[in-house]
């Protein structure tokens, strides 16, 4: 177990380092320098280089770069809001993205579980087919299709919800984005729960529990769902990716001032520092969650750990 953990942590650190190296190399090989003003003499340029530490060897500069990135010092924004430190920009936008992402995860998980359980309990009936259809649609359609559909019908035609996000009505205006973002989570969880539940329902220990007279909601929740949900960790990774990419589009459609829409604006206006900062944050988040998932595997179910170790060797 220890060896496995250590290996996973090392891989994660290596991945993060490689991302940092790529970001750093991009800076190194960009043409020009910050001081390419023709009026500056060579001596002045050298002085400036010394002041900003640009005359140091590459490794020292890389070390500084890593230190800055890890402490959240991403430099300033060039075009979006001139000379504002990016960390300030991020701090004002992160809570909104996290809030909507969190709402979407909760909503999607809740309804996904319910749909999955219904499909498994009513296996091979019309309910099962209906759930399968819903989950296939949810997995295959990009979230902006839902977003556009919802905002046209519920938002525009029936005027039930605001079309755009506004800070005055933070809850009402976050309902449509949350629903559109949650569809992918809902569909994946429903699909997964159904598969696992059907497998668990046929197992010996459920038959034992039934023969002891346990039935109804107690049997479903305590005995079936609990065991069915252990491997749910495996779907976490695609879900996170779905949320990340989904948030970009959803935040653009509903003009939510979050991280995703900031990245889109930064890409469109070539604000490199902002792009790099967000790319780094996304990578760090993703790597961190993957590591957590792998550690959880081992802690929760030794069978999964062993299987995973085998597949790695």
């Amino acid at each position, binding site marked *: 177990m220890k060896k496995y953990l250590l290996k996973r942590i090392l891989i994660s650190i290596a991945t993060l380092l490689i*991302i940092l190296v790529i970001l750093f190399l991009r800076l190194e090989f960009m043409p020009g320098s910050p001081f390419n003003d023709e009026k500056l003499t060579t001596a002045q340029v050298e002085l400036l280089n010394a002041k900003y530490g640009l005359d140091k060897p590459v490794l020292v500069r890389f070390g500084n770069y890593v230190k800055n990135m890890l402490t959240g010092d991403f430099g300033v924004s060039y075009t979006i809001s001139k000379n504002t430190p990016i960390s300030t920009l991020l701090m004002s936008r992160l809570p909104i993205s996290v809030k909507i992402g969190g709402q979407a995860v909760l909503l999607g998980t809740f309804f996904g579980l319910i749909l999955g359980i219904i499909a498994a309990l009513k296996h091979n009936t019309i309910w099962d087919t209906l759930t399968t259809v819903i989950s*296939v649609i949810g997995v295959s359609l990009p979230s902006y*299709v839902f977003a556009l559909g919802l905002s046209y019908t519920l938002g525009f035609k029936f005027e039930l919800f605001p079309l755009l996000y506004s800070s005055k009505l933070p809850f009402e205006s976050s309902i449509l984005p949350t629903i559109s973002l949650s569809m992918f989570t809902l569909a994946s969880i429903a699909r997964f729960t159904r598969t696992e539940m059907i497998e668990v329902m046929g197992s010996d220990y459920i038959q034992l529990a039934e023969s002891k007279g346990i039935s109804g909601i107690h049997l479903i929740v305590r005995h079936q769902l609990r065991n069915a949900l252990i491997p749910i960790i495996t779907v976490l990774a695609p879900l996170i990716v779905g949320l990340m990419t989904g948030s970009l589009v959803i935040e653009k*459609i509903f003009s939510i001032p979050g991280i995703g829409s900031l990245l889109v604006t930064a*890409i469109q206006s070539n604000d490199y520092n902002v792009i790099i900062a967000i*790319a780094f944050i*996304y990578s760090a988040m993703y790597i961190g969650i993957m590591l957590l998932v792998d550690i959880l595997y081992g802690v929760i179910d030794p069978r999964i750990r062993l299987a995973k170790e085998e597949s790695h060797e």
Partner: protein
Amino acid sequence: MSDTPLDEKMIFLEGDFEFVPREKGVHIDETFSNQSYWKDVSKRFFRNKGAVMGLISIAIIIIMAIIGPNLNAYTYDAQIITQQNLPPRIPVIEKLGIFDGSEKLYTSTGIIDQNKYISEDGSVTGLEDVYYWFGTDVLGRDIFTRTWVGTRISLYISLMAVLIDMVFGLSYGLISGYFGGKVDNAMQRFAEILNGIPNLVVVTLLIIVLKPGLLTITFSLMITGWIGMSRIARAQMLKLKQQEFVLASRTLGAKDFFIIFREILPNIFGQIITNTMFSIPTAIFTEAFLAFIGLGVPVPMASLGLLISDAFKSFTTHPYMIIPPVVVLAVLMLSFNMLADGLRDAFDPKMKEM
């Protein structure tokens, strides 16, 4: 055996037998004709209605992508300034009251019903004989032509995804699994590190270096698209390489290359086709997503994502613009998913019950 005492003792008389009527449910051995693997697979596949529907839809979309842009006189990039924002109008069907070129405009003063093709007061608009089947966009370009040109991009992306999976992912996984040991270890660590970088980040970093466009999208697919396939190929290889038929082949003097591609590959074809099919919708989605955030193919090219993104800007006033690309994209994604599901069930019927 004929002269054993047992044989002599057994004498059957007529009364020992009686006719049993069919209705009593006598078990009669059924003989099944021997079915080849592929025949079996195709039989299971065609029994799956969703998968067949997906296959037909994909075929229709491919045909339309090939002939669609040539079906009318308009080109995908010709802008006719006098014919902007025209709603769909289709000959013959227009007599039924739908697709007749009229649209409802929701303005601050109320709802206006208008038809830009034919003016109500009898004045000449010059558009009486003009038909745009899906309407025109804000620059006066034919949406029908643009939709099918855009579909070509999505289909090109699908083809790329398949090629990358087949050429790169497959070989990587098979080689890594077959040789094992240090080679495998190094190759797996490399794949793991690459897999740790979110796709979104890879794409954004590529965009900084390269210009947005088809080439960049292809590159980003190449960097991360093959990892899923390589894992499956490797896992299958690990399972199969210990089996007797591989040993037999090696004993007969087969070289590594022959064993990998001629002995093992045909045995894992089912999983590979299934997995390739699953990677297509992901690739199409990546392109549509990139186009939507402004990183797609450059103008005046059209892709489904770009069309959706353009039409989105005016989708409350002219909703007809966004419907064709969204519907084609949705049908394409859904069809590939259903096809993949159907193939998986056909290749591996054990999975179906799960």
